[in-house]
């Protein structure tokens, strides 16, 4: 029997020969504790994800759920709330028996997150489950609360000795935002790392749980044809777009204090950039993958105040038209302060100063109320060095462009030049398209299903490491500060763009000569 090294007891751990060939690997018996158990994220995402895992038989063999939240209620009431949330938000109609069996033993601990009594009651619940099962259970604490509570909860978990477990693993899953500035991110890391070891911490960026993002790794590292071209010698520019056609909806409170840069660029879009620019990892272990991503972030120079106006644009949507209707501007949205200076659009031009990418601009843009919803990465190759064909009468020979679309239609498109049928040699661009949806039978699981399972299994590949978060903030923090202190009287008002449009014209100022934003 083969033996694996590294079992926490120091004793060599024998392999489990029964796992070979299984699509779903075992997850150790776990109690999941959700802090913020009655909140929006728990109701809309976490509980439905847990139900779907249960439906597919993908939860740990022994699984328990504890909800912790401020509101006073009984276990039974909380179970009912869970049931309603699952019925409403699950991606599949629930099977009554599975639902019953999932929720049968759910417990609820009421109280504010700084109360000692909450943690003693929680400990009691965790111990009860272990007694009932007659076996030690891993513990996963999911912090689905406002960020202000993260340090409080972590500190209390440490104080009440819940951060370690003699007979099992303890993990803490932390939702975004992980800080709103570099200083806050560092402070939060300091707090969390004072109680938990980095290997116990799972910082969620749910983009990483999307199949589409994981597919980028397969696209780059499972296909030999792209790697020889994937560098400054052949690639002219990279453009990453995450556009929304919707406004802020009912999220004014959150959005107005966040803005487009913090909401999407600091985390999700920099992750996409890392996936495009990273070197092939030695192996697909959490540490190797994250090491390569951090190297990319570290190769992006921190913007100076003088550079920011040249490399970053922010703007706010004004009234316009979307989906055939008139829609209000950002300042007219419910809950948005009249004088808000929060950007609903942000665009950056970044450079990755390393051997592979020096001189290649990476354009990032995101915004609300743009022409349509799309997330894509466009890689434009350099033009051919010499063109033997006349361009008269044609749309012209354009450089090859490889577009990876993440949503709504996940796919890959390659723009090529082709001859227009006829007697003359006239070239026009054509697209060679591949859609993932046409090539796979399976439905993609929700990102949270994958991430919760990985966290319970202790696989941190799709989670953000402390140095990764800080490196992201190192790039974004000076821009956030610069924009916050920009005096409208000195620099003019925040640029605006019409709702339903392509974004502000000021964004064109970021582009190198000859570069263009792709149509949204």
């Amino acid at each position, binding site marked *: *029997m083969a033996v694996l090294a590294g*079992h926490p*007891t120091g*004793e060599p*751990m*024998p*392999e*489990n*020969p*029964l*796992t*070979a*060939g*299984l*699509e*779903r690997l*075992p*997850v*150790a*018996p776990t109690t999941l504790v959700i802090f913020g158990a009655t909140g929006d994220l728990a109701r809309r995402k976490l509980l439905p994800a847990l139900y779907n895992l*249960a*439906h*597919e*038989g993908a*939860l*740990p*063999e*022994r*699984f328990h759920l504890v909800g912790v939240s401020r509101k006073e209620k009984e276990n039974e009431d909380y179970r009912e709330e869970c049931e309603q949330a699952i019925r409403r938000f699950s991606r599949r109609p629930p*099977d009554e*028996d*599975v*639902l*019953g*069996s*999932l929720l*049968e033993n759910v417990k609820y601990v009421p109280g504010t997150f700084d109360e000692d009594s909450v943690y003693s009651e929680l400990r009691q619940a965790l111990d009860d489950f272990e007694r*009932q*099962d*007659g*076996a030690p259970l891993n513990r996963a604490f999911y912090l689905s609360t406002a960020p202000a509570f993260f340090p409080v909860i972590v500190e209390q978990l440490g104080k009440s000795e819940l951060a370690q477990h003699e007979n099992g693993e303890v993990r803490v899953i932390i939702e975004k935002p992980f800080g709103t500035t570099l200083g806050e991110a560092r402070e939060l890391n300091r707090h969390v790392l004072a109680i938990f070891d980095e290997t116990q911490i799972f910082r969620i960026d749910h983009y990483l749980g999307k199949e589409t993002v994981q597919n980028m790794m397969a696209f780059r590292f499972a296909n030999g044809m792209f790697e020889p071209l994937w560098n400054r010698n052949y690639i002219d520019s990279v453009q990453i777009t995450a556009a929304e056609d919707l406004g802020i909806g009912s999220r004014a409170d959150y959005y107005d204090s966040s803005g487009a840069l913090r909401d999407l660029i600091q985390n999700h879009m920099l992750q996409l950039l890392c996936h495009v620019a990273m070197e092939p990892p030695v192996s697909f272990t959490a540490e190797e993958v994250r090491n390569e991503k951090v190297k990319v972030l570290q190769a992006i120079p921190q913007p100076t105040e003088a550079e920011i106006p040249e490399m970053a644009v922010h703007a706010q949507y004004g009234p316009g038209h979307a989906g055939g209707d008139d829609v209000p501007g950002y300042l007219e949205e419910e809950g948005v302060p009249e004088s808000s200076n929060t950007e609903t659009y942000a665009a950056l031009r970044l450079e990755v100063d390393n051997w592979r990418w020096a001189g290649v601009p990476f354009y990032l843009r995101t915004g609300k109320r743009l022409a*349509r919803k799309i997330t894509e990465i466009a890689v434009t190759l350099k033009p051919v060095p010499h063109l033997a064909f006349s361009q008269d009468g044609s749309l012209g020979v354009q450089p090859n462009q490889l577009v990876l679309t993440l949503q*709504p*239609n996940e796919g890959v498109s390659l723009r090529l030049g082709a001859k227009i049928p006829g007697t003359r040699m006239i070239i026009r661009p054509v697209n060679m398209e591949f*859609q993932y*949806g*046409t*090539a*796979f*039978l*399976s*439905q993609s699981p929700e990102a949270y299903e994958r991430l919760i399972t990985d966290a319970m299994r202790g696989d941190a590949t799709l989670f953000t490491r402390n140095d990764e978060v800080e490196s992201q903030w190192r790039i974004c923090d000076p821009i956030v500060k610069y924009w916050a202190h920009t005096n409208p009287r000195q620099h003019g008002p925040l640029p605006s763009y019409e709702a339903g449009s392509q974004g502000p014209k000021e964004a064109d100022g970021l582009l190198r000569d000859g570069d263009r934003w792709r149509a949204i």
Partner: protein
Amino acid sequence: MSATPEARSDAVWSAQGTTPDAIEAALRQLLIEVHSEHDNYVPARVLNMIAFVDREWTGEIANRLRGVGRYHASRLVVLAYEPRRERLDARVMITSEGETEPGELALLHETVVVELGDRHLDDLLTIADPLVVTDLPTLLWAPHGHHEIAAELLALSQAVLVDSVEEPIAHEALDRACSLASQAYVVDLAWLRTTPWRERVAASFDPPSLRRELQTITSATVRHHPASTVAAMLLSGWLASRLQWRASPLVAHGDALVGRAHGSRQDVSLRLEAAPELLVPGLESLTLETASGRTLRLARGRGGLHAHSRDARGQEHEWTIPGASRGERGVLGEGIRQALLRDPTYVPALKAARAMVA
């Protein structure tokens, strides 16, 4: 025969006394027409499936395939066999899964039904070949037997779908699966019915403190639907192959098959027992005992598998492992999906199961 239940956009072509070339041309033309009507309709390009069926049972096959949902093959070629048929008739249907949202794609599935008779069997390969999409993997399914005829089509197929529990005699089912496995990748629905059981046994013994006990299993009892003996054998075969037991042939003992396997440390007592109370095909329960006196019993139940364990000190625990039943349609859908994967543990389990049959 239309195998997609909620089709919104249907394009149909049919002809009597036709040829494979004409059918293939009609398919191409229909695809062009559908795509030009709505450019968001795009053909799925995942998997070809060839079903060789008795013509009189094509309706039953259509019903079974309706239940597989999104696991429908992108091109289904039904060869509907009627021995005395002289003429080659064909129908082509292109269906989409539903209305499209602006900017979103709608996948098209293609179904080709070719009615043929004995006189066409010599040319079976040349009839089917033009109808499958080149470069896509092809799954062959012959649910009504006709193994010798269907064997001709193995040349076109990378995977073959079987259900070993449908063969009345266990050793013939296992022999046939072994023989097919040497020619193509075999997806056996009987094996797929054991998947939740295999996952749960693997999980139950996954905690480090229990992994060593895998080598000390002293008995394995599988209760099964009376018609699912092969599924029980495959599950036992899986345990034997993964845990390196050498199994001897089982012998009948009342309603059960009993025997022994030789493990590295001790012998293992094996018992496969019919469970007449079980109304659906598949397994009813699995009980494993170890040398320390630990017992684990997993049993089919509402909302998932019910587990009962007793440790060496005699302490007992019961719990439910949630999981929804896939039903027979779900199992068939899973079979189609598995044609695109490769499970390296099936053939060793199959061979170990074969060794249990005299």
